């Protein structure tokens, strides 16, 4: 049995993002950044400080910011566009749709403070529907890093990818999952832990919860695989199908509404290619509220313990269906 992981808080994904953007800006003069008066929070600030002539603070006017980024992209720039995930995706959705997605422009949309783990600011600032909105847009790639190392790597991959990308970062410090030397490939999910009975597919902060859940299950004699599906689009269909056929039970876990995010997308793939039971951990058709991230994860069903209960439920289903 594997040695238990020790929880070590690393940088927040938004901080790792901010450093990565500076690296990308230094390597490529075509990179420009736009923010809607949140550069201290989204962490576009370090780029602004280093490359002031390539940074445009657009004020609290997200719609204009997104279309202006599209105009820059048609002239060969690579714009990185920043706001809170909720404001970027919800306020500027039509601008993303028609200014960026329809013409398939090379713009990177960075939504910080994703999910409910920003905590105390409450529901207006939290983002529970950003992945559903982003995944709905044809041709837009959608990324959900789980820790600082994966965030930095995915931001570099996003910069190299030619086409529109949405990437969500988070506010709180993120538990360390990967070592600095870990390599990531575009659109390739990562199986972090192997297992025989169930596969948990998670992204963002839920990857850590999934790992903790797998350890608890191991103590109970249940062998659980954990996969970091950091890219919602393009989805790693072959890895998902392989996991479905190997463990014959899939649990998804995400800091997002159950509709339109990882759970929906994985269920569709499994249903089409390798029908096995799929149960989803996520936020159930509600907005959250103010509170500490830990308290919110507890109340809205996003902890390792919730995942463990879901593993037990799916094993019961699996046994019932095999008897039938």
């Amino acid at each position: 049995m594997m040695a238990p992981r020790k929880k070590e808080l690393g940088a927040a994904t938004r901080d790792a993002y901010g450093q990565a953007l500076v690296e990308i800006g230094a390597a490529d003069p075509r990179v420009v950044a736009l923010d809607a008066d949140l550069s201290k929070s989204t962490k576009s600030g370090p780029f602004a400080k280093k490359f002031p002539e390539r940074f445009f603070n657009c004020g609290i006017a997200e719609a204009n910011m997104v279309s202006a980024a599209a105009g820059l992209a048609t002239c060969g720039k690579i714009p990185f566009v920043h706001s809170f995930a909720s404001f970027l995706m919800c306020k500027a959705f039509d601008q993303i749709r028609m200014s960026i997605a329809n013409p398939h422009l090379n713009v990177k949309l960075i939504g910080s403070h994703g999910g409910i783990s920003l905590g105390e600011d409450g529901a207006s600032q939290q983002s529970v529907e950003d992945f559903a909105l982003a995944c709905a847009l044809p041709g837009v790639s959608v990324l959900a890093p789980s820790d600082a190392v994966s965030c930095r790597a995915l931001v570099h991959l996003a910069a190299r990818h030619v086409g529109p990308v949405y990437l969500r970062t988070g506010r709180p410090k993120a538990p360390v999952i990967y070592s600095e030397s870990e390599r990531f490939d575009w659109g390739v999910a990562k199986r972090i832990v192997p297992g025989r009975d169930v596969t948990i597919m998670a992204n963002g902060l839920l990857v850590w919860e999934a790992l903790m859940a797998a350890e608890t299950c191991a103590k109970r004699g249940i062998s659980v695989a954990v996969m970091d599906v950091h890219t919602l689009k393009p989805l790693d269909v072959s890895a998902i199908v392989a996991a479905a056929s190997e463990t014959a039970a899939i649990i998804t876990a995400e800091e997002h509404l159950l509709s339109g995010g990882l759970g929906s997308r994985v269920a569709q793939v499994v249903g089409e290619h390798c029908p096995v039971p799929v149960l989803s951990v996520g936020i159930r058709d509600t907005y959250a509220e103010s509170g500490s991230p830990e308290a919110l994860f507890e109340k809205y069903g996003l902890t390792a313990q919730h995942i463990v209960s879901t593993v037990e439920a799916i094993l019961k289903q699996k046994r019932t269906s095999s008897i039938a």
Partner: protein
Amino acid sequence: MIGTAESGHPGGSLSAADIIAVLYFSVLRHRPDDPWWSERDRFVLSKGHGAPVLYAALARSGYFPSAQLATLRKMGSPLQGHPEYGKLPGVEASTGSLGQGISLGAGMALAGRLDRKPYRVYVLIGDGEANEGQVWEAAAFSAHFKLDRLTVILDCNRQQLDGWTREILDIEPLVDKWEAFGWRVLDINGHDLEQILSALNATENSDGKPTLILARTTKGKGVSFMENNIEFHGMAPTAEQTAAALREL
């Protein structure tokens, strides 16, 4: 074109026809045989429902054969009902969802400044379109960043789909509003070719301010039974009406 397509927006195309003709044939520095020439002047038709007049100007300029104009709005044609980037050479943006064009043009003007390229950016918007909040976000943004290579032409035909602009959502006084946002405003007759030309040329000597040309126009201009007739905002003429209209134009 619209008659053949049996759908489209003749009124707002005709109100903008004189402006677009002057722009394409006397003002824009562009190379129809090299549509992506990096120093070309950019034109964004923010009021995307005016697509037919843009397509006519592009064809006449030599971007594609005029025979293709008959495919407007047909399946498989690059002449989409509203312009789409990447489908037709000379189309600089996907428009039709109103309000986005000035922001797009502002981004193009910012890129030109970063690259020290001398091109200008022209954006045509409608007066009904100026209901959109994004128009005013872009107005503030362009003035703040001193985008004096950006010229917006406001095709003020005083009508929108549901009726007179004054009655739907009154947006006057437009001169005062744009000046208050920090723009240089030129108030002209949008069907007087000399006034259009001198206004577009006057934008060459700007002073840190973006320019708004407030072009007073007539919806359906040039076709007696379409002029100021709101029915022709979004309705194609019949075959007989098309023939009559073409005789008048």
